[in-house]
């Protein structure tokens, strides 16, 4: 009974404060500046409990932008491994969903899902901050 209650509290805490880590694995920056925009007064995701963390060890959600380039692949894997479980991955932007306009580049492996298991895809080139917030809310609903 106590165990079930504790698990409910932990799940509630996870839903109410998903801390995100942002990593750009090779994108053009368009989606990155829209992600940073989420912290600024107009969108202000801190009211949803979302904080942008500096270290993978502190994060719950990995927000990835950009297609995966060969040079970034191992670094992306290592960052994902460093995030403590339970962890989720959100692919932000068309490039991280599928490679986008760069999909046939000689140095581009494709979207994030070529390297990591993705939970939420947020398409757009670049995607609007509202779409990213929508993606994060969908993720929080899934966590429930």
């Amino acid at each position, binding site marked *: 009974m106590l165990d079930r209650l504790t698990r409910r509290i932990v799940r509630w805490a996870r839903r109410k404060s998903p801390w995100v880590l942002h990593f750009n694995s090779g994108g053009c920056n368009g989606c990155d500046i829209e992600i940073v925009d989420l912290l600024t007064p107009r969108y202000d995701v801190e009211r949803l409990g979302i904080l942008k963390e500096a270290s993978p060890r502190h994060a719950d959600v990995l927000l990835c932008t950009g297609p995966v380039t*060969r*040079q970034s692949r191992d670094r992306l894997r290592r960052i994902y491994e460093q995030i403590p479980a339970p962890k989720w991955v959100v692919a932000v932007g068309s490039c991280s969903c599928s490679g986008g306009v760069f999909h*046939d*580049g000689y140095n581009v492996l494709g979207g994030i*899902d070529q390297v*990591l*298991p*993705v*939970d939420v895809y947020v398409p757009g080139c670049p995607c609007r901050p509202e779409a990213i917030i929508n993606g994060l809310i969908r993720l929080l609903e*899934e966590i429930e």
Partner: protein
Amino acid sequence: MNVDLVLEALHEHFPTDPLEPRIVPVDETIVTLTPENVRPAVQMLIERFDLRHLSAITGIDTGDEIELLYHFWDGQGLTLRTSLPRENSHTVTLIDLIPGAAFYEREVSEMLHVLFDGHPTPDRFLLPDDWEGEPPLRRGVPLACQTDNLENGELSDQRHSRFKGEARP
């Protein structure tokens, strides 16, 4: 920069070079030199005209030869053009005259396999550390991503999706 004075000086110093100056948009004069005369020409341009702003070095594989274009700018554009053979393409570095040429030369070097003799750090610049393939901008090199997905030399069309959840409308 007075382009006419520059052209006169180049004629004077390199009488046997074709030069063949022509103007292309946008207000850019292109001059052709032999590979061994590029470095002395740049030295002369720096000493006589204080022309030190190197905007870019373009490398092109035309199929017959490797063309190098050194784009300078000082009020007007001046490009020094030279051709290298496709095998064993090498020329002398400009890094001691113009330190800003370092990154441009490294990029041309790895994209087109052109060696710049005397360049102190010819390591990987843009291409990944484990790049095994051909120089990407050489003709005949396919665009496909050269990765572990190659099966029998063909790029596998299988996209491995690692999507965890169910797709919802």
